């Protein structure tokens, strides 16, 4: 495993961990959603990195789709909290 992967994996794992803590802690629903939003961005990036690591181009599609769905998911929750659904 090359060095930059290691660094990236450490950072990304820590980032996900911190995001997860916020997700659990809240305290408001909005805080949790922000955490979720951030985590979904992190995961999108991680998926792209994974594609690189495994050298499979098709995984990039996964990152793209995950990014789109994560975005719309956050919008939906935001609108739900706005009581507009």
């Amino acid at each position, binding site marked *: 495993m090359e060095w930059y992967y290691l660094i990236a994996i450490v950072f990304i794992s820590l980032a996900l961990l911190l995001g997860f803590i916020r997700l659990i802690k809240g305290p408001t629903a909005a805080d949790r959603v922000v955490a979720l939003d951030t985590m979904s961005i992190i995961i999108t990036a991680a998926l792209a990195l994974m594609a690189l690591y495994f050298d499979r181009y098709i995984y990039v599609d996964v990152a793209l*789709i995950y990014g789109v769905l994560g975005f719309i998911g956050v919008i939906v929750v935001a609108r739900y909290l706005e009581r507009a659904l």
Partner: protein
Amino acid sequence: MKKFFVIALLAILGFYLTIAFLQIPFGQNRLGQPQDEATVGAYYLNNTKEKSAVSNVVTAIVVNYRGFDTLGEVTVLFLASTGLASILYRRKEEEVERINKPSSSLLQTGSKFLFPLVVLLGIYVFIHGHLTPGGGFQGGAIIATGFLLMLIAYQKYHVSHSMLTWVESLAGVLFVSIGLWGLITGGTFLENSYFPKGVLNSLISGGAIPIIYIAVGFKVAAELTGVLDILLNTKEEKSVPSNQNEK
């Protein structure tokens, strides 16, 4: 009291599940090497490329080996949308305007910009179902998400249910007809041997599999969109005394 009881139950359940799964080591070949074909999965991996010319084995399974499941699954979705329409059915005269809580102009603009691109992505995903990790369900779901974005950004966004009906019906009919074609021509239901297989990893490959997946993509997109539309458009139609919420 009830809580403790439930937690105790879940603890026991968790214990049993854990001991069950502890014996199933993660990431190991439990049933021999793939070339032994001890599992159906191994058989698919060893044969799909030659027999079906489909790059994505999952797609081959979903559409062909277990295409019958997929037909059922499409039906489940179809029934969910039918059922939903029946559960939340209102007669015309009962139609109530949705309470308008518009989203910001920013979101509206952004959605309008992103929507066609999301739809395009969905189409890409289901057209390439046999080549990439995508497929009809995923593509359909992405398209529906695009519509969801529009539905929540513009509360008055109008989805034509007549259009949805046409799409989902024709797609469904296409799926079953392809299946029946196999039966009529003396083969089996859903048989995939009467279309040229094509070249592995090119767009035109896999016989009828991409066609079915495109049909599935349209159908899923239409159905999910219909479901989302109905759910979103029935919710806030009636104000209920809020004091009933608390005791």
